């Protein structure tokens, strides 16, 4: 593999485009210059820190360090999903579902990939496990955010209909089935669309990265296809786990709708 390593000077050149964008913001009085600068700086610091930590983890080859990095991903996922909900469950439930569903699904898919497909030695080898885990969780997270939002808002909006079914003697799973089904569809739609247009609208990021890094496009494609399969599988598992958990939390063992377990709707950015 041969690739052209980038120097800080190359990055500075690329940043010129961002400076132009900031200039446009100034010209059109959008007031976004500060945000552009801060976002760009944040991105550099975050990616720099992650790269350094990953380098350390890869060099150490330690299973503990790998597990610690994975746990950090779990915490970030939980926070990201939990804080993006328009109507959150009281207590830590939104964060628990938000962290657990993508993480469990991501872990199943990634461990399956590294042990059964890639066959890395040892199976938890951080160079393979962590990037795949990250990519899979990142996508499952988006699905889980959507499914939780869809189910909690539909349950609040369609309270009269759900309670009419419960009042007629339906179980909570029957009464919530339409809401659940629509929620699961909402959660699965982005990854299905992404698969459908992969390569047509844009070449996926990982494949682009590999091609730029000198890999053969067909090899890069093979990896990308595997990753998309993993992502779709993990998103499916995560979305179903999160959807079922949300339905269970929105109802109780006496088959009552428990909207009191949700906080009031908040405005999202």
């Amino acid at each position, binding site marked *: 593999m041969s690739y052209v390593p980038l120097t800080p000077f190359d990055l500075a050149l690329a940043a010129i485009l961002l400076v132009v964008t900031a200039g446009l913001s100034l010209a059109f009085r959008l007031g976004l210059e500060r945000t552009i600068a801060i976002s760009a700086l944040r991105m550099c610091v975050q990616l720099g820190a992650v790269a350094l930590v990953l380098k350390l983890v890869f060099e150490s080859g330690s299973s503990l360090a790998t597990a610690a990095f994975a746990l950090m991903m779990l915490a970030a996922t939980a926070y990201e999903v939990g804080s993006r909900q328009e109507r959150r469950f009281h207590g830590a439930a939104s964060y628990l579902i938000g962290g657990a569903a993508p993480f469990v699904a991501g872990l199943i898919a990634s461990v399956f990939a590294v042990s059964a497909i890639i066959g890395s030695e040892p199976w938890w080898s951080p160079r393979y496990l962590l990037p795949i885990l990250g990519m899979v969780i990142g996508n499952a997270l988006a699905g889980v955010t959507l499914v939780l939002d869809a189910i909690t808002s539909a349950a609040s909006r369609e*309270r009269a*209909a759900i309670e009419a079914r419960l009042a007629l003697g339906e179980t909570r799973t029957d009464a919530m089935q339409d809401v659940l089904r629509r929620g699961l569809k909402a959660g699965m739609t982005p990854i299905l669309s992404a698969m459908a247009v992969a390569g047509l609208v844009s070449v996926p990021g990982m494949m682009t990265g590999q091609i730029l890094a000198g890999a053969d496009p067909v090899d890069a494609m093979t990896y990308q296809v595997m990753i998309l399969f993993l992502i779709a599988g993990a998103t499916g598992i995560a979305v179903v786990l999160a959807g079922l958990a949300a339905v269970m939390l929105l109802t109780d063992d006496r088959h009552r709708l428990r909207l009191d377990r949700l906080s009031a709707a908040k405005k999202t950015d």
Partner: protein
Amino acid sequence: MPPLSFEVAGGECLAVEGASGSGKTRLLRAIADLDPVEGLVFLDGAERAEVPAPQWRRMVRYVAAEPGWWSDTPRAAFAPGLVDGGRLDRQLDHVGLTRAHLDMDIAVLSTGERSRLAFVRALQGEPKVLLLDEPTAALDPGSAALIEEQIKFQLYGGRIVLLATHDAGLSQRLSHTRLVLPKPRAVAGAGAS
């Protein structure tokens, strides 16, 4: 509000009255076990908590003042397995509706038609208790009279009816007992047998 205790026998109607916010709806919903509320409710000697909730609600039917629907037409709420066809035709006819109404778009039906359909829907499966929340509030006088007749008919059939209403006339005509809820907050416990 102090804890409540009352009994209603088969074929009798208890009217629950009180100002808005006095807890009429909460009381009916609590008896149907739709909200977690402390207190004991007995039906034929069995306490609510001893009976699986879906089974309880098939015997103790709550009909909301603004009933909800979950599909484009009312048909889904009258699934063939749950419904006795011949009886359904009669029940619809008694409240001035026909089978054609089951296939009409919910959005096209008037508030009164939806209320009457919800009343008929609640009769499917032969519940022992009807908890009716303002059953005639949305109806024109003619439809209200039809529903009133049907409530009487259910009482003759031995059903227990709990009726939350602002309509003093309706309450007087139908109820055997009246329960007036005081103004401040809602209910702690209730018993019906």
